[in-house]
């Protein structure tokens, strides 16, 4: 129990550190999701806004730690989860509040847009391999499990504690054994579709002079997503094979090391993305400030982009004003509902 509390406190601290730095990892022409003049981030007003936000983040993180420790020690159900939730929601609220203080310093909205008169030669890194490799890993694992079906125990582990001890089980049935692999394949496909959407349905550069940076940023994001899919597929394959190679009812072995596969596969690409974000020639993103609700949610029905760069955090977010998005969400919800009914 104490081990779990320590790990959870560690995660809260890690999240606090991330939230602490996140507002500074942005395009240089933005400050708290507001388009500002060059050099604004060095002004007293900008620094004061950042200090205010960081003070809120660390206060909320202390509350979260108190909830985690208190909930763990006195066995109060849901208190640790409430603490973590408080940190996440509170930080978003703090960001939105501080953004309102930065808004008076915004540069006047400009309608200037720029686009290259060229086709779209980009694709997923590695081409078809980006899809074939993870699906192949999962399919090969499923075939190997099928061939060794009799060697599988009557109950197979599907969830593990932090020390590598199984704490969730499924019967040795078709969906108990293959279900996690199928789920992983579906999630992987969704992530690869998101990568495709970044390539084909997000702006390449709307502000002249930012083309090269935008190209590097898009590429780094797409590579990270593909690496993540590969890493998760490898991790899930190893977990699925665990019952064949270890005594799942015995003492925990080296199962806890399996997630390291994921960490190792994404860490260099995460670092690369952070390095791109910290470059200084990124300018602004060409989306109107007024369409950023609370600085976090992009809603612009006039914009045909399905995905745009996030203004808080690294990566891409969806344009909630895009009608195509709601079709996709509707179809996905219907599929999930049908699968649940059929299962």
């Amino acid at each position, binding site marked *: 129990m104490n081990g779990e509390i320590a790990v959870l406190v560690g995660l809260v601290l890690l999240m606090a550190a991330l939230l602490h730095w996140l507002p500074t990892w942005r395009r240089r022409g933005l400050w708290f999701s507001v388009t500002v003049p060059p050099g604004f981030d060095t002004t007293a007003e900008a620094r004061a806004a950042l200090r205010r936000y960081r003070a809120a983040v660390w206060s909320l993180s202390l509350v979260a730690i108190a909830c985690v420790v208190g909930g763990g020690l006195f066995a109060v159900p849901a208190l640790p989860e409430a603490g973590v939730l408080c940190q996440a929601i509170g930080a978003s609220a703090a960001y939105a509040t501080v953004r309102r203080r930065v808004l008076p310093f915004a540069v006047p909205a*400009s*309608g200037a847009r720029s*686009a290259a*008169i060229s086709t779209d030669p980009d694709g997923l890194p590695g081409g078809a391999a980006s899809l074939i490799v993870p699906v192949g890993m999962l399919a090969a694992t499923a075939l190997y499990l099928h061939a060794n079906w009799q060697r599988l125990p009557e109950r197979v582990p599907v969830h593990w504690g932090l020390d590598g001890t199984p704490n969730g089980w499924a019967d040795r049935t078709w969906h108990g054994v293959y279900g996690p692999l199928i789920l992983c394949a579906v999630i992987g496909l969704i992530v690869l579709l998101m990568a495709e959407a970044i390539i084909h349905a997000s702006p390449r550069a709307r502000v002249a002079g930012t083309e090269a940076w935008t190209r590097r940023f898009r590429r780094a994001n797409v590579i990270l997503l593909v690496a993540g899919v590969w890493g998760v597929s490898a991790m899930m394959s190893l977990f699925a094979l665990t019952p064949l190679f270890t005594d799942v009812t015995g003492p925990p072995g080296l199962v806890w090391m399996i997630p390291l596969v994921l960490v190792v596969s994404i860490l260099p690409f995460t670092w690369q993305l952070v390095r791109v974000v910290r470059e200084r020639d990124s300018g602004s993103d060409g989306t109107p400030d007024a369409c950023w609700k609370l600085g976090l949610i992009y809603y612009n029905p006039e914009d045909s982009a399905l995905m745009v760069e996030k203004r808080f955090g690294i990566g891409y977010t969806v344009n909630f004003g895009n009608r195509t998005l709601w079709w996709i969400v509707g179809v996905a919800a219907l599929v999930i509902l049908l699968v649940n009914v059929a299962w």
Partner: protein
Amino acid sequence: MTQPPRIQIDLGSATPVNRQIVDQLRTRLVEGTLAPGAVLPSVRRLAVDLGVHFNTVADAYRTLANEGWLDVAQGRSVRVVERAVPAAGPEARDLFRQRLRQLVAEARAAGMSPAILSRELAALAERMKS
């Protein structure tokens, strides 16, 4: 690596966006920056890049296709085509003169001297000959 030509629009301008796209693409087509055979971005790609509605770009491409500059057949990429230059009638010349006078008047009102304007027009004419 050579940078591809770019198109610039201003959403705040009094000129409609589809007209701005048409004007800029036509200029590049006339100047030869976009030569026959060149492939233009798809309607979807250009609309996403500019942050405007698909119909705005589709309308601009249709206008240029009607003028004979583009092939916009459905299911194929948008391509610049060889265009037979029509013979300009007296009405076209009158319209051109009228527009040129308006443009020159605007430039004079903005403070440009006749000498500068004359040099600019001469340079433009020279470029068009080549």
